[in-house]
């Protein structure tokens, strides 16, 4: 796990004077699943194409398997050790088997070798028996599984996935995810997956890099990215609902009190008094209760009135006006049990350790 498969140093790409990728430096460890999350148009696909050596960066360094990948002669052999699955399945006008065989044909494998590998791979992606069909007749999910089979049949050491499940129904998406996890666990393939779906990133990736506007401002474990984002933009993108500007009023050995619109909020931070900060905490870290007497170790307890309830899947975002609007995530079940409605008085609480503090730039 320790050696790096890919290392970039101030990697940049510029199209017609526009910086699409700017000074991206990070490394991907051998054998890990690395997620790249970011909004649409942030440069995810371009970054993958740079890493897969399909496009030439305009600046910076790129090392793959310890080799300088930007030396012209190094590219082709390195490219043959990697594979890329694009967001929209690319389908060649030929049979499913011939589609999957393409990469092996390029590598001049013998027909029996190809035939064996294609059959095995078809089976692995759940398309056994589809080999002779024209690839054009496949559904979206089948097409993407075929494209995945075509990418992995050449046994790449690094697999790049560009939003592989974005256009798929949930069942197909789940199958693709299962296959990806299996490839990573059983064959040790390093996987780099781009997604704008943070939950997918969280579910699959060991580590995540956040890409915003062509730059990579944060790389870390999913917990770090989701709970300790380093900028407010990242926080907003990873779904942090509670974000406020404030000033530190006191700090005793890291246990600080921050004034947010007149409310004292306890947090753990090294910043000194009078520092202007932004504090943030996730809605799922906020507990909602109807009486103050509920025993809680949380140091931040506020009284308020329910202002709005926004359903989201099996949960409800309950926005409570406590002078500042605080959002708490409650399951639909407990929302019904508590009989929550708009205008109801309630209490919210959250721990000082759940509050992440950013110095205002």
């Amino acid at each position, binding site marked *: 796990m320790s050696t790096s498969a890919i290392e970039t140093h101030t990697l940049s790409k510029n199209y017609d004077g526009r910086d699409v990728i700017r000074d991206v430096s990070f490394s991907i460890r051998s054998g890990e699943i690395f997620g790249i999350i970011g909004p649409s148009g942030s440069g995810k696909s371009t970054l993958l*194409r740079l890493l*897969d050596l*399909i496009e030439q960066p305009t600046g910076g360094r790129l090392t793959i398997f310890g080799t300088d990948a930007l030396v012209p002669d190094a590219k*082709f052999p390195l*490219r*043959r050790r*990697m*594979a*890329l699955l*694009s967001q*929209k399945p*690319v389908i*060649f*006008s*030929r*049979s499913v*088997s*011939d589609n999957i*065989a*393409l*990469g092996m*044909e*390029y*590598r001049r494998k013998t*027909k029996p070798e*190809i*035939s064996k590998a294609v059959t095995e791979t078809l089976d692995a992606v759940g398309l056994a028996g589809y*080999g*002779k069909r024209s690839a054009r007749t496949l559904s979206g999910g089948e097409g993407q599984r075929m*494209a995945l089979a*075509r*990418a992995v049949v*050449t046994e790449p050491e690094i697999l790049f996935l560009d939003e592989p499940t974005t256009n798929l129904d949930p069942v197909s998406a789940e199958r693709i995810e299962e296959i990806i996890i299996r490839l990573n666990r059983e064959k040790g393939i390093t996987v780099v997956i781009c997604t704008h779906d943070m939950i997918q990133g969280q579910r699959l990736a060991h580590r995540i890099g956040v890409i915003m506007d062509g730059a990579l401002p944060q790389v870390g474990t999913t917990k770090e990215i989701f709970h300790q984002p380093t900028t407010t933009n990242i926080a907003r993108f990873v779904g942090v609902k509670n974000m406020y500007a404030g000033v530190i009023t006191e700090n005793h050995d890291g246990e600080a009190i921050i004034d947010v619109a007149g409310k004292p909020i306890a947090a753990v931070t090294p910043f000194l008094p009078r520092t202007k900060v932004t504090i943030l905490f996730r809605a799922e870290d906020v507990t909602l209760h109807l009486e103050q007497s509920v025993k809680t170790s949380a140091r931040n307890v506020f009284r308020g009135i329910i202002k709005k309830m926004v359903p989201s899947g099996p949960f409800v975002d309950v926005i409570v006006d406590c002078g500042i609007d605080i959002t708490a995530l409650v399951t639909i079940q407990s929302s019904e049990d508590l009989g929550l409605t708009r205008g109801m008085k309630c209490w919210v609480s959250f721990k000082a350790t759940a509050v992440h503090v950013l110095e205002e730039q």
Partner: protein
Amino acid sequence: MVNEIIDGFIQAIQLIVSLNPEVVGITILTLIVSLTSTFLSALISIPAGAYIYCHDFFGKRLVINIIQTLYALPTVLAGLLLFLLLSHQGPLGFLDFLFTPQGMILAQMILVTPLILGLTITALSGIDKDMRHSILSLGATKFQAVVTLIQEARFAILAAVILGFGRAISEVGAAMIIGGNIRAFPGDFLSGTRVLTTAISLETSQGDFSLAIALGLILLGVAVIVNVGLNMIQSGSLWKNSWNS
């Protein structure tokens, strides 16, 4: 006039049924010249089109514009220029191609090559960018990538070839100037340069309208048969990839 058209039909059927040796000879020569010129043009144009498509060079846009302009090259102008080149004093006089089927093939190639070349470039340009990236990512060499791209654009490229054949078999200006509409010796259809279009032109000028119409109908018939054949190829069976069949 209507009578002549009807007579033409009747005569066409008679000529075909009786396998009139001269008409058969003219038809065979027409097919040989047009198919050869189209085939040789395709042989040059498809790789050349792929080369132009794949390489970025100074003036590429201009080259493509010139190629596309040549789609409309007047056949008589092509014939005239080639005539000057092939004449005994001309730079290509040593070939001795003037008034020969070879010369006519060359003339038709000049007319057909820009068409197939330009439309091949257009066909390749129509391929999705994701597909080009996929081909590279799958580990293709440059050559393998081009072959796959041509295979993917095969329908559009074959359509270009069909169009090219249409231009070759139907043109009269260059065939007349370069070939000279020379009647073949009986039994040796390669000894002459009379093809269906030049024969129609001659019969019309001689006032034998029904024979001209009969030859015109044969020309149309030949074009239909060749196009149906090429369309059958286009619709699939002959292009299927090999290894799992």
